């Protein structure tokens, strides 16, 4: 089944104001940067974005924040973004902060047909407010519900025409779960190959979760914290 679209414009067709999007990535690692640039260009507004982080001021989701295109962020950590903090403290931006493991599992659950699950994370904290608590094995757990999105946008290293994906290094992070949880999932890849070229034994995300795939025009892959050691 050929999932290939020609370019980012075609890939993002149908995304409208007010929709909920999932965007893969951890920090700036493994983010769908071509699609984010296109969302800025399209000027779509009032978005709810589910993404572990919110980019930095001038890259990643920070670009959408700058243009005030995001109404609500659902994330686990947003510390690298001054504009984000400003919009949140001034009340312009709604923010739902979720423990990282719960965020990952809520996306996975959304894609896996599990409506909710119990987790110990957040019990006894403000995250647990208003949530059902149950004791399992003598330990309190809170009920967390699944997340889904109108569109999920993920970034992979390699993909084939069937939508099968392979990720590289720690750029995998949230991408596989978010791919599962989108009603329509768009994959942007660095390398797009014909079906049959990827070894089926080593595919990370099966193409059934992907509706559209395209080769990204360019990947800047900005490094957030460049840390090195000296050669002796």
């Amino acid at each position, binding site marked *: 089944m050929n999932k290939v679209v020609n370019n980012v414009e075609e890939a993002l067709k149908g995304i409208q104001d007010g929709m909920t999007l999932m965007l893969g990535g951890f920090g700036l690692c493994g983010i769908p940067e071509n699609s984010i640039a296109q969302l800025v260009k399209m000027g779509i507004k009032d978005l709810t974005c589910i993404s572990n982080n919110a980019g930095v001021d001038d890259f990643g989701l920070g670009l959408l924040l700058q243009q005030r295109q995001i109404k609500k962020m659902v994330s686990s950590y947003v510390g690298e973004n001054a504009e984000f903090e400003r919009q949140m403290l001034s009340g312009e931006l709604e923010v739902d902060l979720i423990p990282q493991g719960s965020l990952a599992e809520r996306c996975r659950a959304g894609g896996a047909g599990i409506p909710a699950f119990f987790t*110990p994370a957040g019990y006894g904290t403000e*995250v647990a407010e208003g949530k059902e608590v149950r004791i399992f094995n003598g330990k309190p757990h809170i009920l967390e519900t699944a997340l889904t999105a109108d569109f999920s946008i993920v970034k992979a290293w390699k993909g084939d025409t069937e939508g099968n994906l392979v990720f590289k*290094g720690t750029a*995998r992070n949230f991408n596989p779960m978010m791919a599962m949880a989108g009603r329509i999932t768009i994959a942007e890849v660095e390398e797009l190959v014909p079906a049959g070229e990827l070894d089926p034994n080593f595919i990370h995300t099966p193409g059934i979760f992907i509706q559209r795939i395209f080769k990204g025009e360019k990947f800047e892959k900005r490094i957030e914290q460049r840390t*090195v050691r000296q050669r002796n």
Partner: protein
Amino acid sequence: MALDKNGIAKRIAQELKDGWYVNLGIGIPTLVANYIPEGIEVEFQSENGILGMGPFPFEGEEDPDLINAGKQTITARKGAVYFDSATSFAMIRGQHVQLTVLGAMEVSQEGDIANWKIPGKMVKGMGGAMDLVASADNIIVAMMHANKAGESKILKKCTLPLTGVGCVKKIVSDLAVLEVKDGKFHLIERAPGVSVEVIVSLTEGDLVVPDFVPEMEI
């Protein structure tokens, strides 16, 4: 003399045991990797999706697709493995990771920890901290005993929004090693040259002090 950050990391490294999988938080905990005792092998897990994390890369060899949870460029050791975030937290919640080391703004004598939010001032998010503290059997907190104004951060009750309840069992601060049990802090060791009196005066929570408190050997 009070320990510096590296001193705290060095003392915590003495707690490592051969064969352990260890998750190190951002800040002082990251430094623990520099002081692994000789003759033991541990593997570091970073919750963004790597097991077998190695040192920082040499200049020019940074890979944007290879970072740790602090978004720093890293390397992978032989035998390392990458995985997605759900699998990563399955390792954490499922208690497959033997030790978690993380920082704290406050710890209470009940073992509660606060490290993610200062209302009205700092709202960065909890990242993976709530999942880590809720699940890990073995948590060591690396922290300063008091803030710059000399106010204790080792308290009867936390004042900041909590990250987890009843989860901290051990603290290594710049002044002391403390155990947390039965609703009290227990003084186990003191930093070289730091008196018991100084530790007592900078510990707001209930502190049990034995007759003899050995100095840390670092």
